[in-house]
Protein backbone atom coordinates (compact mmCIF):
# COMPACT_ATOMS: atom_id res chain seq x y z
CA UNK A 1 0.00 0.00 0.00
CA UNK A 2 2.60 2.46 -1.09
CA UNK A 3 0.75 5.12 -3.04
CA UNK A 4 -0.90 7.27 -0.44
CA UNK A 5 -0.72 7.24 3.31
CA UNK A 6 -4.30 7.45 4.56
CA UNK A 7 -4.64 8.42 8.18
CA UNK A 8 -4.86 5.50 10.54
CA UNK A 9 -7.90 4.80 12.67
CA UNK A 10 -6.76 5.09 16.29
CA UNK A 11 -9.96 5.01 18.33
CA UNK A 12 -11.25 2.06 20.30
CA UNK A 13 -14.86 3.25 20.22
CA UNK A 14 -17.28 5.39 18.27
CA UNK A 15 -19.18 7.46 20.79
CA UNK A 16 -19.96 10.62 18.88
CA UNK A 17 -19.06 12.82 15.93
CA UNK A 18 -18.02 15.75 18.11
CA UNK A 19 -14.53 14.40 18.97
CA UNK A 20 -13.76 13.25 15.40
CA UNK A 21 -11.53 15.20 13.04
CA UNK A 22 -12.47 15.82 9.42
CA UNK A 23 -9.88 13.28 8.15
CA UNK A 24 -11.32 10.66 10.51
CA UNK A 25 -14.83 11.28 9.20
CA UNK A 26 -13.56 11.15 5.63
CA UNK A 27 -11.69 7.90 6.33
CA UNK A 28 -15.02 6.30 7.30
CA UNK A 29 -16.85 7.78 4.29
CA UNK A 30 -14.08 6.65 1.91
CA UNK A 31 -13.98 3.15 3.37
CA UNK A 32 -17.74 2.62 3.07
CA UNK A 33 -18.16 2.34 -0.75
CA UNK A 34 -16.24 -0.94 -0.83
CA UNK A 35 -18.89 -2.29 1.52
CA UNK A 36 -21.74 -0.84 -0.54
CA UNK A 37 -20.38 -3.03 -3.34
CA UNK A 38 -20.48 -6.14 -1.13
CA UNK A 39 -24.20 -5.65 -0.41
CA UNK A 40 -24.85 -4.91 -4.09
CA UNK A 41 -23.47 -8.23 -5.35
CA UNK A 42 -26.07 -9.76 -7.62
CA UNK A 43 -25.10 -13.41 -7.79
CA UNK A 44 -22.20 -13.46 -5.34
CA UNK A 45 -22.32 -14.13 -1.62
CA UNK A 46 -23.07 -10.82 0.10
CA UNK A 47 -20.48 -11.31 2.79
CA UNK A 48 -16.78 -10.73 3.38
CA UNK A 49 -14.66 -12.43 6.06
CA UNK A 50 -13.29 -9.35 7.85
CA UNK A 51 -14.96 -10.05 11.22
CA UNK A 52 -15.01 -13.83 11.00
CA UNK A 53 -15.24 -15.42 14.43
CA UNK A 54 -15.88 -12.10 16.18
CA UNK A 55 -18.89 -11.45 18.39
CA UNK A 56 -21.00 -8.34 17.88
CA UNK A 57 -23.65 -7.69 20.52
CA UNK A 58 -26.58 -5.42 19.76
CA UNK A 59 -27.83 -4.03 23.03
CA UNK A 60 -30.88 -1.84 22.62
CA UNK A 61 -32.65 -0.23 25.53
CA UNK A 62 -34.94 1.81 23.33
CA UNK A 63 -37.20 0.55 20.59
CA UNK A 64 -35.53 0.46 17.21
CA UNK A 65 -36.07 -1.62 14.16
CA UNK A 66 -34.14 0.17 11.46
CA UNK A 67 -30.92 0.88 13.34
CA UNK A 68 -30.79 -2.49 15.07
CA UNK A 69 -31.47 -4.37 11.86
CA UNK A 70 -28.89 -2.30 10.03
CA UNK A 71 -26.20 -3.02 12.64
CA UNK A 72 -27.11 -6.70 12.71
CA UNK A 73 -26.92 -6.98 8.96
CA UNK A 74 -23.64 -5.05 8.87
CA UNK A 75 -22.13 -7.49 11.37
CA UNK A 76 -23.44 -10.50 9.47
CA UNK A 77 -22.10 -9.20 6.15
CA UNK A 78 -18.68 -8.99 7.82
CA UNK A 79 -19.13 -12.67 8.85
CA UNK A 80 -19.36 -11.87 12.58
CA UNK A 81 -21.52 -13.75 15.06
CA UNK A 82 -24.31 -11.55 16.38
CA UNK A 83 -26.36 -11.47 19.54
CA UNK A 84 -29.26 -9.17 20.30
CA UNK A 85 -30.34 -8.09 23.73
CA UNK A 86 -33.32 -5.82 24.24
CA UNK A 87 -34.37 -4.11 27.42
CA UNK A 88 -37.40 -6.26 28.08
CA UNK A 89 -35.46 -9.52 27.83
CA UNK A 90 -32.40 -8.47 29.78
CA UNK A 91 -31.73 -8.72 33.47
CA UNK A 92 -31.95 -4.96 33.66
CA UNK A 93 -35.60 -5.45 34.44
CA UNK A 94 -34.41 -7.45 37.44
CA UNK A 95 -32.30 -4.53 38.59
CA UNK A 96 -28.87 -5.46 37.20
CA UNK A 97 -26.65 -2.46 36.46
CA UNK A 98 -25.37 -1.61 32.99
CA UNK A 99 -21.81 -2.37 34.04
CA UNK A 100 -22.73 -5.77 35.45
CA UNK A 101 -24.67 -6.73 32.37
CA UNK A 102 -21.81 -5.65 30.13
CA UNK A 103 -19.25 -7.45 32.27
CA UNK A 104 -21.25 -10.62 31.80
CA UNK A 105 -21.44 -10.14 28.06
CA UNK A 106 -17.70 -9.52 27.98
CA UNK A 107 -17.09 -12.70 29.92
CA UNK A 108 -18.46 -14.41 26.82
CA UNK A 109 -15.75 -12.64 24.77
CA UNK A 110 -17.60 -9.96 22.90
CA UNK A 111 -15.63 -7.81 20.45
CA UNK A 112 -18.12 -5.08 19.60
CA UNK A 113 -21.01 -3.77 21.66
CA UNK A 114 -23.59 -1.64 19.89
CA UNK A 115 -25.61 0.22 22.47
CA UNK A 116 -28.69 2.40 22.39
CA UNK A 117 -29.80 3.89 25.70
CA UNK A 118 -32.03 6.74 26.77
CA UNK A 119 -29.35 8.37 28.92
CA UNK A 120 -26.92 10.75 27.26
CA UNK A 121 -23.36 9.67 28.03
CA UNK A 122 -24.15 6.01 28.65
CA UNK A 123 -22.02 4.78 25.76
CA UNK A 124 -19.08 6.90 26.92
CA UNK A 125 -19.28 5.58 30.46
CA UNK A 126 -19.27 1.99 29.22
CA UNK A 127 -16.42 2.65 26.80
CA UNK A 128 -14.08 3.85 29.51
CA UNK A 129 -14.70 0.84 31.74
CA UNK A 130 -14.90 -2.04 29.30
CA UNK A 131 -12.59 -3.59 26.74
CA UNK A 132 -15.08 -4.24 23.93
CA UNK A 133 -15.31 -1.75 21.11
CA UNK A 134 -18.40 0.35 21.91
CA UNK A 135 -20.51 1.87 19.16
CA UNK A 136 -23.08 4.43 20.24
CA UNK A 137 -26.35 3.73 18.43
CA UNK A 138 -28.06 6.67 20.11
CA UNK A 139 -27.75 7.95 23.68
CA UNK A 140 -30.60 10.17 24.82
CA UNK A 141 -30.47 13.56 23.15
CA UNK A 142 -26.70 13.42 22.85
CA UNK A 143 -25.53 11.73 19.62
CA UNK A 144 -26.35 9.15 16.98
CA UNK A 145 -23.03 9.11 15.11
CA UNK A 146 -23.68 6.33 12.59
CA UNK A 147 -26.84 8.11 11.39
CA UNK A 148 -24.87 11.29 10.72
CA UNK A 149 -22.19 9.33 8.86
CA UNK A 150 -24.65 7.51 6.63
CA UNK A 151 -26.39 10.84 5.98
CA UNK A 152 -23.10 12.50 5.03
CA UNK A 153 -22.23 9.59 2.71
CA UNK A 154 -25.64 9.82 1.02
CA UNK A 155 -25.32 13.60 0.58
CA UNK A 156 -21.82 13.26 -0.81
CA UNK A 157 -22.92 10.53 -3.25
CA UNK A 158 -25.78 12.70 -4.50
CA UNK A 159 -23.64 15.84 -4.81
CA UNK A 160 -20.97 13.88 -6.69
CA UNK A 161 -23.61 12.41 -8.98
CA UNK A 162 -25.21 15.77 -9.70
CA UNK A 163 -21.90 17.53 -10.37
CA UNK A 164 -20.40 14.61 -12.28
CA UNK A 165 -17.35 14.94 -10.03
CA UNK A 166 -16.30 11.75 -8.23
CA UNK A 167 -14.16 13.65 -5.75
CA UNK A 168 -16.57 16.47 -4.77
CA UNK A 169 -16.78 17.20 -1.06
CA UNK A 170 -19.56 18.72 1.03
CA UNK A 171 -17.70 22.04 1.23
CA UNK A 172 -20.23 24.83 0.76
CA UNK A 173 -23.17 22.45 0.33
CA UNK A 174 -26.28 23.91 1.95
CA UNK A 175 -28.26 21.64 4.24
CA UNK A 176 -31.56 22.61 5.88
CA UNK A 177 -32.57 20.45 8.85
CA UNK A 178 -36.23 20.87 9.74
CA UNK A 179 -38.19 19.86 12.83
CA UNK A 180 -37.70 19.07 16.48
CA UNK A 181 -34.07 19.99 16.93
CA UNK A 182 -33.95 19.96 20.71
CA UNK A 183 -34.98 16.32 21.20
CA UNK A 184 -32.94 15.14 18.25
CA UNK A 185 -29.61 13.37 18.62
CA UNK A 186 -29.77 12.93 14.85
CA UNK A 187 -29.75 16.71 14.41
CA UNK A 188 -26.92 17.13 16.90
CA UNK A 189 -24.68 14.52 15.29
CA UNK A 190 -25.50 15.85 11.83
CA UNK A 191 -24.58 19.39 12.81
CA UNK A 192 -21.20 18.21 14.10
CA UNK A 193 -20.58 16.06 11.06
CA UNK A 194 -21.73 18.50 8.39
CA UNK A 195 -19.99 21.54 9.82
CA UNK A 196 -16.73 19.58 10.12
CA UNK A 197 -17.11 18.59 6.46
CA UNK A 198 -17.55 22.21 5.41
CA UNK A 199 -21.29 22.21 4.71
CA UNK A 200 -23.47 25.18 5.61
CA UNK A 201 -26.25 24.10 7.93
CA UNK A 202 -29.54 25.88 8.62
CA UNK A 203 -31.73 24.58 11.42
CA UNK A 204 -35.44 25.30 11.28
CA UNK A 205 -38.31 24.48 13.64
CA UNK A 206 -40.58 25.92 16.31
CA UNK A 207 -38.56 28.07 18.72
CA UNK A 208 -39.74 25.86 21.58
CA UNK A 209 -37.98 22.93 19.89
CA UNK A 210 -34.71 24.79 19.33
CA UNK A 211 -32.07 24.17 22.00
CA UNK A 212 -30.64 27.40 23.42
CA UNK A 213 -26.98 26.36 22.99
CA UNK A 214 -27.44 25.76 19.26
CA UNK A 215 -26.19 29.23 18.28
CA UNK A 216 -22.70 28.21 19.34
CA UNK A 217 -22.54 25.29 16.92
CA UNK A 218 -21.76 27.34 13.82
CA UNK A 219 -25.14 27.06 12.14
CA UNK A 220 -27.92 29.40 11.04
CA UNK A 221 -31.21 29.17 12.89
CA UNK A 222 -34.63 30.24 11.68
CA UNK A 223 -38.30 29.59 12.36
CA UNK A 224 -39.23 30.34 8.76
CA UNK A 225 -39.35 27.20 6.62
CA UNK A 226 -39.28 29.14 3.35
CA UNK A 227 -36.13 30.98 4.41
CA UNK A 228 -34.48 27.74 5.52
CA UNK A 229 -34.95 25.86 2.25
CA UNK A 230 -34.81 28.74 -0.27
CA UNK A 231 -31.21 27.94 -1.28
CA UNK A 232 -30.89 24.41 0.13
CA UNK A 233 -29.14 21.59 -1.70
CA UNK A 234 -30.47 19.14 0.88
CA UNK A 235 -33.75 19.27 2.80
CA UNK A 236 -33.56 17.05 5.84
CA UNK A 237 -36.85 16.46 7.66
CA UNK A 238 -36.60 15.16 11.22
CA UNK A 239 -39.18 12.87 12.73
CA UNK A 240 -41.58 14.60 15.08
CA UNK A 241 -41.15 12.46 18.15
CA UNK A 242 -44.80 12.18 19.06
CA UNK A 243 -43.88 10.02 22.06
CA UNK A 244 -41.83 12.91 23.48
CA UNK A 245 -44.51 15.54 22.95
CA UNK A 246 -46.19 15.09 26.32
CA UNK A 247 -45.10 18.55 27.41
CA UNK A 248 -46.99 20.34 24.62
CA UNK A 249 -44.04 22.11 23.05
CA UNK A 250 -46.06 23.27 20.08
CA UNK A 251 -49.71 24.24 20.12
CA UNK A 252 -51.04 21.52 17.86
CA UNK A 253 -49.95 19.03 15.29
CA UNK A 254 -52.10 20.85 12.78
CA UNK A 255 -50.17 24.06 13.37
CA UNK A 256 -46.83 22.24 13.05
CA UNK A 257 -47.97 20.79 9.74
CA UNK A 258 -49.09 24.20 8.49
CA UNK A 259 -45.77 25.86 9.31
CA UNK A 260 -43.13 23.17 8.91
CA UNK A 261 -44.31 20.25 6.81
CA UNK A 262 -42.29 19.58 3.69
CA UNK A 263 -44.86 19.07 0.97
CA UNK A 264 -45.66 19.97 -2.63
CA UNK A 265 -46.60 23.55 -1.62
CA UNK A 266 -43.88 24.41 0.87
CA UNK A 267 -41.08 22.98 -1.26
CA UNK A 268 -41.85 25.32 -4.17
CA UNK A 269 -39.41 27.94 -2.89
CA UNK A 270 -36.53 25.41 -2.79
CA UNK A 271 -34.16 24.87 -5.74
CA UNK A 272 -35.24 22.22 -8.25
CA UNK A 273 -32.18 20.09 -7.52
CA UNK A 274 -32.68 19.95 -3.75
CA UNK A 275 -33.19 16.41 -2.55
CA UNK A 276 -35.08 15.16 0.48
CA UNK A 277 -33.76 13.11 3.37
CA UNK A 278 -35.32 11.70 6.53
CA UNK A 279 -33.78 9.46 9.22
CA UNK A 280 -36.93 7.35 9.54
CA UNK A 281 -39.34 6.19 10.64
CA UNK A 282 -41.54 8.74 8.87
CA UNK A 283 -44.74 10.14 10.28
CA UNK A 284 -46.33 10.34 6.87
CA UNK A 285 -48.00 13.65 6.14
CA UNK A 286 -46.84 15.18 9.43
CA UNK A 287 -43.23 16.32 8.89
CA UNK A 288 -43.08 15.15 5.28
CA UNK A 289 -45.83 14.52 2.75
CA UNK A 290 -46.19 10.92 1.61
CA UNK A 291 -46.04 12.13 -1.97
CA UNK A 292 -42.56 13.66 -1.53
CA UNK A 293 -41.31 10.80 0.66
CA UNK A 294 -42.03 8.38 -2.18
CA UNK A 295 -41.09 10.81 -4.96
CA UNK A 296 -38.07 11.17 -7.21
CA UNK A 297 -36.38 13.75 -5.00
CA UNK A 298 -36.38 11.46 -1.98
CA UNK A 299 -33.15 9.60 -1.18
CA UNK A 300 -34.54 8.00 1.97
CA UNK A 301 -33.99 4.44 0.81
CA UNK A 302 -30.43 5.23 -0.30
CA UNK A 303 -29.85 6.35 3.29
CA UNK A 304 -30.95 2.92 4.48
CA UNK A 305 -28.68 1.14 1.98
CA UNK A 306 -25.71 3.32 2.91
CA UNK A 307 -26.44 2.73 6.59
CA UNK A 308 -25.39 -0.91 6.37
CA UNK A 309 -22.18 -0.05 4.49
CA UNK A 310 -21.18 2.75 6.87
CA UNK A 311 -21.71 0.46 9.85
CA UNK A 312 -19.63 -2.24 8.17
CA UNK A 313 -16.85 0.29 7.61
CA UNK A 314 -16.96 1.41 11.25
CA UNK A 315 -16.92 -2.12 12.67
CA UNK A 316 -14.02 -3.01 10.39
CA UNK A 317 -12.06 0.09 11.40
CA UNK A 318 -12.69 -0.41 15.13
CA UNK A 319 -11.88 -4.13 15.18
CA UNK A 320 -9.13 -4.44 12.58
CA UNK A 321 -7.03 -1.33 13.21
CA UNK A 322 -5.08 -3.02 15.98
CA UNK A 323 -6.30 -0.57 18.63
CA UNK A 324 -6.53 -2.22 22.03
CA UNK A 325 -7.84 -0.79 25.23
Amino acid at each position, binding site marked *: *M*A*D*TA*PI*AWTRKDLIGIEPLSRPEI*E*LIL*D*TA*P*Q*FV*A*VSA*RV*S*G*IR*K*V*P*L*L*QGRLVVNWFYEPSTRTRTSFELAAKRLSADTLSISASTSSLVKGESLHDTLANIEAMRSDVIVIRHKYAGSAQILATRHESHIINAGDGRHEHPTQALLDALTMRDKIRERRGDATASLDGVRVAIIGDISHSRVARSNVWCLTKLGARVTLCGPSTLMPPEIGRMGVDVTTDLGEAIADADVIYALRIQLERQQRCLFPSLREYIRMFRIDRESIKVAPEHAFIMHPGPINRDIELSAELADGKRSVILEQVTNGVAVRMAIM*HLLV*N*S*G*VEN
Partner: protein
Amino acid sequence: MNEHDPSAREETVVMTAETMAEACRRLAREIAGANTDMASVVLLGILRRGRPLADRLARLLAEMTGVAPPVGSLATTLYRDDLRSGVGRLKPGVAETYFEFPINGATVILVDDVIAAGRTIRAALDELMDYGRPRRIQLACLVDRGGRELPIQPDYLGWPVSAGENDRVVVRLAETDGQDMVVIRRSLPEDGEAEEG
Protein backbone atom coordinates in the same frame (compact mmCIF):
# COMPACT_ATOMS: atom_id res chain seq x y z
CA MET B 1 -0.17 7.62 -8.73
CA ASN B 2 2.70 9.31 -7.01
CA GLU B 3 5.74 7.02 -7.09
CA HIS B 4 8.14 8.51 -4.58
CA ASP B 5 11.30 10.32 -5.49
CA PRO B 6 13.31 8.11 -7.88
CA SER B 7 16.55 9.90 -7.10
CA ALA B 8 16.38 8.66 -3.52
CA ARG B 9 16.89 5.05 -4.62
CA GLU B 10 18.90 3.15 -7.12
CA GLU B 11 16.65 1.96 -9.94
CA THR B 12 17.41 -0.85 -12.35
CA VAL B 13 15.27 -1.31 -15.42
CA VAL B 14 14.36 -4.98 -15.79
CA MET B 15 11.74 -4.70 -18.55
CA THR B 16 11.41 -2.08 -21.25
CA ALA B 17 8.23 -1.29 -23.17
CA GLU B 18 9.43 -3.66 -25.90
CA THR B 19 10.13 -6.61 -23.62
CA MET B 20 6.81 -6.02 -21.86
CA ALA B 21 4.94 -6.07 -25.18
CA GLU B 22 6.75 -9.27 -26.19
CA ALA B 23 6.00 -10.87 -22.82
CA CYS B 24 2.30 -10.00 -23.18
CA ARG B 25 2.22 -11.56 -26.66
CA ARG B 26 3.80 -14.71 -25.30
CA LEU B 27 1.35 -14.83 -22.37
CA ALA B 28 -1.55 -14.51 -24.82
CA ARG B 29 -0.11 -17.26 -27.07
CA GLU B 30 0.28 -19.59 -24.10
CA ILE B 31 -3.24 -18.86 -22.85
CA ALA B 32 -4.67 -19.48 -26.32
CA GLY B 33 -2.63 -22.69 -26.65
CA ALA B 34 -3.71 -24.08 -23.31
CA ASN B 35 -7.40 -23.25 -23.69
CA THR B 36 -8.98 -24.80 -26.76
CA ASP B 37 -12.44 -23.62 -25.70
CA MET B 38 -11.80 -19.87 -25.86
CA ALA B 39 -15.54 -19.14 -25.63
CA SER B 40 -15.52 -20.17 -21.97
CA VAL B 41 -12.49 -18.03 -21.04
CA VAL B 42 -12.95 -14.85 -18.99
CA LEU B 43 -10.20 -12.58 -17.67
CA LEU B 44 -10.23 -10.95 -14.25
CA GLY B 45 -7.58 -8.31 -13.66
CA ILE B 46 -6.53 -7.81 -10.06
CA LEU B 47 -6.77 -4.13 -9.24
CA ARG B 48 -5.08 -1.96 -9.83
CA ARG B 49 -2.51 -2.80 -12.54
CA GLY B 50 -3.78 -6.27 -13.28
CA ARG B 51 -6.84 -4.73 -14.97
CA PRO B 52 -5.08 -2.88 -17.81
CA LEU B 53 -2.89 -5.95 -18.33
CA ALA B 54 -6.02 -8.11 -18.61
CA ASP B 55 -7.43 -5.66 -21.18
CA ARG B 56 -4.20 -5.95 -23.20
CA LEU B 57 -4.27 -9.74 -23.06
CA ALA B 58 -7.93 -9.75 -24.14
CA ARG B 59 -7.08 -7.64 -27.22
CA LEU B 60 -4.17 -9.93 -28.11
CA LEU B 61 -6.33 -13.03 -27.61
CA ALA B 62 -9.00 -11.53 -29.87
CA GLU B 63 -6.39 -10.97 -32.61
CA MET B 64 -4.97 -14.48 -32.25
CA THR B 65 -8.16 -16.52 -31.85
CA GLY B 66 -10.96 -14.30 -33.15
CA VAL B 67 -12.68 -14.58 -29.77
CA ALA B 68 -12.55 -11.56 -27.46
CA PRO B 69 -12.83 -12.81 -23.87
CA PRO B 70 -14.80 -10.61 -21.44
CA VAL B 71 -12.74 -8.70 -18.87
CA GLY B 72 -13.58 -7.74 -15.29
CA SER B 73 -11.86 -6.38 -12.18
CA LEU B 74 -11.20 -8.09 -8.88
CA ALA B 75 -10.35 -5.93 -5.86
CA THR B 76 -9.35 -8.72 -3.41
CA THR B 77 -8.84 -6.10 -0.69
CA LEU B 78 -11.70 -7.21 1.57
CA TYR B 79 -10.25 -10.74 1.62
CA ARG B 80 -6.66 -9.83 2.56
CA ASP B 81 -5.34 -11.90 5.44
CA ASP B 82 -3.39 -9.05 7.00
CA LEU B 83 -6.47 -6.91 7.73
CA ARG B 84 -7.86 -9.16 10.43
CA SER B 85 -4.58 -9.23 12.31
CA GLY B 86 -4.39 -5.46 12.61
CA VAL B 87 -1.20 -5.45 10.52
CA GLY B 88 -2.59 -4.19 7.23
CA ARG B 89 -4.95 -1.35 6.59
CA LEU B 90 -7.77 -1.11 4.10
CA LYS B 91 -6.99 1.68 1.71
CA PRO B 92 -10.00 4.00 1.47
CA GLY B 93 -11.38 5.10 -1.86
CA VAL B 94 -10.05 2.24 -3.99
CA ALA B 95 -11.93 0.79 -6.95
CA GLU B 96 -14.26 -2.13 -6.42
CA THR B 97 -14.68 -5.59 -7.85
CA TYR B 98 -16.74 -5.40 -11.00
CA PHE B 99 -17.64 -7.88 -13.71
CA GLU B 100 -20.87 -8.46 -15.57
CA PHE B 101 -20.48 -12.05 -16.74
CA PRO B 102 -21.31 -15.26 -14.85
CA ILE B 103 -18.29 -17.23 -13.66
CA ASN B 104 -20.06 -20.54 -13.00
CA GLY B 105 -18.50 -23.03 -15.38
CA ALA B 106 -16.09 -20.48 -16.89
CA THR B 107 -12.34 -20.74 -17.23
CA VAL B 108 -11.24 -17.73 -15.18
CA ILE B 109 -7.79 -16.36 -15.82
CA LEU B 110 -6.58 -14.14 -13.01
CA VAL B 111 -4.19 -11.46 -14.24
CA ASP B 112 -1.82 -9.54 -11.98
CA ASP B 113 1.25 -7.42 -12.59
CA VAL B 114 3.54 -8.83 -9.88
CA ILE B 115 3.43 -12.01 -7.85
CA ALA B 116 5.49 -12.09 -4.66
CA ALA B 117 4.21 -13.69 -1.45
CA GLY B 118 1.18 -15.12 -3.23
CA ARG B 119 -1.17 -13.73 -0.60
CA THR B 120 -3.04 -11.46 -3.03
CA ILE B 121 -3.81 -14.49 -5.19
CA ARG B 122 -5.00 -16.43 -2.13
CA ALA B 123 -7.37 -13.53 -1.39
CA ALA B 124 -8.46 -13.44 -5.04
CA LEU B 125 -9.31 -17.15 -4.98
CA ASP B 126 -11.44 -16.69 -1.85
CA GLU B 127 -13.25 -13.71 -3.32
CA LEU B 128 -13.84 -15.51 -6.60
CA MET B 129 -15.38 -18.51 -4.83
CA ASP B 130 -17.91 -16.15 -3.21
CA TYR B 131 -19.14 -15.26 -6.70
CA GLY B 132 -19.61 -18.76 -8.04
CA ARG B 133 -17.89 -21.96 -9.10
CA PRO B 134 -15.59 -21.55 -12.08
CA ARG B 135 -14.70 -24.68 -14.03
CA ARG B 136 -11.05 -23.84 -13.59
CA ILE B 137 -8.92 -20.92 -12.49
CA GLN B 138 -5.54 -20.08 -13.97
CA LEU B 139 -3.05 -17.37 -13.09
CA ALA B 140 -1.14 -15.07 -15.43
CA CYS B 141 1.48 -12.69 -14.02
CA LEU B 142 3.72 -10.24 -15.86
CA VAL B 143 6.51 -10.46 -13.27
CA ASP B 144 7.48 -13.01 -10.61
CA ARG B 145 9.71 -11.31 -8.08
CA GLY B 146 10.04 -14.39 -5.82
CA GLY B 147 9.57 -14.46 -2.06
CA ARG B 148 6.60 -16.82 -2.04
CA GLU B 149 4.96 -17.45 1.32
CA LEU B 150 2.17 -19.69 0.00
CA PRO B 151 2.22 -22.65 -2.40
CA ILE B 152 0.81 -20.65 -5.34
CA GLN B 153 2.48 -20.46 -8.76
CA PRO B 154 1.49 -18.71 -11.98
CA ASP B 155 0.35 -20.84 -14.93
CA TYR B 156 1.62 -18.17 -17.32
CA LEU B 157 4.61 -16.00 -16.45
CA GLY B 158 5.96 -13.04 -18.40
CA TRP B 159 9.28 -12.48 -16.68
CA PRO B 160 11.10 -13.79 -13.60
CA VAL B 161 13.01 -11.18 -11.60
CA SER B 162 15.63 -11.77 -8.97
CA ALA B 163 14.89 -9.25 -6.29
CA GLY B 164 16.14 -9.08 -2.74
CA GLU B 165 13.74 -9.34 0.13
CA ASN B 166 13.60 -5.61 0.69
CA ASP B 167 13.83 -4.50 -2.94
CA ARG B 168 10.76 -3.04 -4.55
CA VAL B 169 9.68 -4.27 -7.97
CA VAL B 170 7.65 -1.52 -9.62
CA VAL B 171 5.53 -2.12 -12.70
CA ARG B 172 4.56 1.00 -14.60
CA LEU B 173 1.86 0.84 -17.25
CA ALA B 174 0.97 3.40 -19.90
CA GLU B 175 -2.67 3.27 -18.74
CA THR B 176 -1.92 4.05 -15.09
CA ASP B 177 1.53 5.61 -15.02
CA GLY B 178 2.07 7.12 -18.46
CA GLN B 179 4.72 4.64 -19.62
CA ASP B 180 5.50 0.93 -19.79
CA MET B 181 8.46 -0.13 -17.67
CA VAL B 182 9.42 -2.52 -14.89
CA VAL B 183 12.16 -1.46 -12.48
CA ILE B 184 13.74 -2.75 -9.30
CA ARG B 185 14.37 -0.22 -6.60
CA ARG B 186 17.18 -1.39 -4.36
CA SER B 187 16.29 -0.81 -0.76
CA LEU B 188 17.98 1.80 1.34
CA PRO B 189 18.40 0.97 5.01
CA GLU B 190 15.67 3.36 6.23
CA ASP B 191 13.18 2.21 3.65
CA GLY B 192 12.03 -1.33 4.36
CA GLU B 193 8.49 -1.16 2.99
CA ALA B 194 7.79 -4.57 1.49
CA GLU B 195 6.14 -5.02 -1.86
CA GLU B 196 2.47 -5.91 -1.87
CA GLY B 197 1.87 -9.15 -3.64
